[in-house]
């Protein structure tokens, strides 16, 4: 009898629990990108980007076809639209491989809270997709520009942001979870990367775009967007984005630093090119004379990649001199970026508020509700401590040995 009971329970497990979410791979379409625009008649115009997987098989059937296709619908909520997509597409959609969410400028300015909630709540999306604000063109245009090596547009953007983030730091590396945690924190405001479309969006839609070495249309990274809560307030350039990211999680970057301190025309100036690695960043807020001072402390290592200067790289003095120059240059850069954010946007995107909360909880509680104003007024101190360790496989540069008159 006992065994019969056990068997019936097991049977229930098999027969009742199984199969409900079973769906074969050839019955789904993989959505890789979502683009949100303002609708003409309704609140949103949603575009999905679907992979045409058949195009990626070795023995293509039906010849050349598009690697990805898009479809747009208008409606008042994203979730409703996503379920209605079968108006135009054949298969059920799966969203677990969504890589990029394109948000058009107009929507971003109005506020994106209303649909971010759905993406966070549904459980169908991974929380690690990129959030991108698109400048200029409509967001849907960005989801259509193909690229030869990474044929699916969103996969291209995803890979591109990752590489750019790791190699140079020009992408703020914002994923859905980062965005939401910045949104909910009072001591920080969210940011997102921005994209811009170079060239002709019409031509970019065709896969013939991939036939040229210099493409007719290309999606480029364009710094980042600054939000006040969920509303777009402005942009930072790619360089400023790097400076911003330097206060966050930057690992490596590179830059050129003038050899001499006196102001010259750029074409006459000589530069040293350095790369930075192993950086450790720390944000602090201290109260000095009752006023908050924002402190950034960065440690790290630098390496000379190339030099145009005449300085003798076999001498320790040169290294010390360069080190000082680099530190001053970087400190200046970062300070300017922070100042710009303070004056132009007046929102704390760096998380100084969070740092203050950790260090001086009581002080923070006093200013919590108007932290952004306090932030905008605060002094900034940037302390850069980069060590120049190496200069490649050469000591003296041959430039110093070329005879000159």
């Amino acid at each position, binding site marked *: 009898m006992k*065994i*019969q009971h056990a068997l019936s329970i097991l049977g229930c*497990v*098999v027969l009742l*629990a*199984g*199969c409900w*979410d*079973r*769906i*074969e*791979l*050839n019955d*789904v379409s*993989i959505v*890789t990108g979502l683009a949100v625009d303002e609708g003409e008649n309704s609140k949103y115009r949603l575009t999905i980007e679907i*992979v045409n*997987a*058949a*195009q*990626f*098989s070795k023995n293509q*059937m039906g010849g050349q076809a598009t690697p990805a296709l898009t479809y747009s619908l208008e409606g008042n909520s994203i979730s409703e639209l996503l379920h209605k997509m079968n108006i135009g597409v054949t298969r059920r959609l*799966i969203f*677990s*491989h969504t*890589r990029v969410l394109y948000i058009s400028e107009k929507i971003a300015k109005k506020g994106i809270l209303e649909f971010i909630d759905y993406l966070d709540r549904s459980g169908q999306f*991974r929380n690690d997709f990129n959030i991108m604000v698109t400048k200029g063109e409509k967001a849907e245009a960005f989801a259509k520009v193909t690229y030869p090596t990474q044929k*699916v547009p969103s*996969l291209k953007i995803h890979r591109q942001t990752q590489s750019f983030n790791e190699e140079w730091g020009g992408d703020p590396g914002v994923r859905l979870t980062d965005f939401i945690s910045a949104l909910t924190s009072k001591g920080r405001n969210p940011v997102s990367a921005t994209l811009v479309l170079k060239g002709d969006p019409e031509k970019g839609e065709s896969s013939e775009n991939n036939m040229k070495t210099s493409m007719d249309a290309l999606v480029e990274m364009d710094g980042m967007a600054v939000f006040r809560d969920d509303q777009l307030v402005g942009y930072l350039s790619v360089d400023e984005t790097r400076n911003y990211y330097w206060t966050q999680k930057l690992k490596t970057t590179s830059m050129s630093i003038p050899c001499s301190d006196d102001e010259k025309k750029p074409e006459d100036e000589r530069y040293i090119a350095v790369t930075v690695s192993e950086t450790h960043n720390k944000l602090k807020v201290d109260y000095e004379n009752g006023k908050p001072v924002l402190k950034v402390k960065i440690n790290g290592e630098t390496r000379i990649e190339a030099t145009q200067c005449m300085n003798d790289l076999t001498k320790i003095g040169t290294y010390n001199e360069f080190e000082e120059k680099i530190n001053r240059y970087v400190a200046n850069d970062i300070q300017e970026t922070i100042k710009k954010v303070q004056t132009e946007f007046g929102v704390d995107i760096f998380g100084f508020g969070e740092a203050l909360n950790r260090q001086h909880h009581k002080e923070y509680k006093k200013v919590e509700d108007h932290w952004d104003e306090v932030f905008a007024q605060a002094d900034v101190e940037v302390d850069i401590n980069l060590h120049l360790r190496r200069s490649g496989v050469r000591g003296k540069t041959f430039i110093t040995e070329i005879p000159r008159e």
Partner: protein
Amino acid sequence: MSLFSSLFSRKKNKNNGKPSEEELFEQQDVPKQYYSQVEKNKKLLEELFKGTFDFKYELIKIGGQKAYITYLSTMTDKNELSNRVIQTATNHPNDISFSNMVEMRELYFPSIDYKIAENFHRVVWGILNGEAIIMVDGYSEALSLGIGMPEQRAVSEPSTQTIIRGPKDGFVEGLQVNLLLVRKRLKNPRLKFEIFQMGRDSKTNVALGYINDIANEDLLKEVRKRLNQIDVGALLDSGNVEEFIVDKTLTPFPLVYNTERPDSICGHLLEGKMAIFVDGSPFVLTVPTLFVDFFQASEDYYQPFIMSSFVRLVRYSSFMIALLFPSLYVAISTYHHELMPTQLLISVQAQRESVPFPAVIEIMIMELSFEVLREAGVRMPRVVGQTVSIVGALVIGQAAVEAGLVSNVLVIVVAFTAIASFVSPIYSFSIATRLLRFVVIFSAAFMGLYGVLLFLIVMVIHLVSLRSFGIPYLAPVAPFQPRNQDDVFVRLPIWLNKNRPSYLFPKSPVRSEENNQPSPPEQPLGGQK
């Protein structure tokens, strides 16, 4: 369930109703009485062996008396018979007298192995074993001369457990040769072989081998008890014995280890296990058997321990691959698309575009056709082997993919699974995964990874419930015994392996006391530098 239990559970309180050899002969209406008048005996024999051409007898004179030499011509060595028995008997002068058969044998055939058959059953038994029976008129017993012809295959390399380095001899069908192969390796007076006769019709010799001062006494009793309980028509292979002595038959996992390799048997005997040799079978059993035994090849002990340890880990992982790979494919491709990297998902989807079946049907087609191929490969005559393999590889491998019946990635999955399933050194273990694989594929098809997990839970519960002669099947992993881990997942160097596994409760638990770690000489050779 009662059907199952009656089918599979061993009858525990069977009152050993197995008939003895004598009773058996009586049941078969073989008379017991041996007469001193040889003619009478000859008549009886003729009656008994009526209708078979190979029953022969010669009428000669021994010591002036009428005598018969009877034998089965198919079972005896004809040269021996005519040169050493008939010729000697007839050449001797007829006036030699003897009082009994032992004396006669000393006078006539001093160098031949003999037995005294004091009743008629023994006479028949001797004839059936290929012995020549000499019945002399006027004596109340017969002489049985062992000149049986040991007709058998020469010792050759085992066909099921090949190795690269290590001894290349394997067991054969003859029991004597098999025992010799073991004795030759273990020159130890405490190595005992007990003989049992089993099978009402076959009278097969079964030998139980163990090392007296290592093997546990209680375990030995249990093995003897189970062997004595066997009551069967005929034993044609050790597989028949295996089914009689296992603790549980309703399990896909083998609870008795079998091998063709004498060195492997010696290794097991030295751990404190017992070996069961069955006459007529080159596969020797050892008991008790553990799950981990099936991952240990004898070559592990002949190659450097680092390599053997690595290979052993490969074996464990291929077991998991052979068991789970197809079901993981089914589960992930029908339930958990998010678990695959995007690029992989796209390329898998691209390959599946033209496949008309659900993933589970697709994989069942391939797995079943592979099973068919495999079975055909084993059963078919060697000469047509090539035809089958070409057709199989072409039809299943290529044409099915090109026709769009199955996807490329699936062929990879099935092929890799198949190869992984061959990694286990013991065939009877690899066929266990073969069956379970189908169960887990269905489980995955119904419930996805959840189903795979449920299957694994049930399988592990089943595994820990198994016993082999009372020893937990999963020992020394579950129950975990830290002291016995030196030869489980990795093999430690032999000089570190000083203790016999304690889960077998050996009488002497220590192999060697001394620290045998090899090292360079303390003084540099060749004097000072």
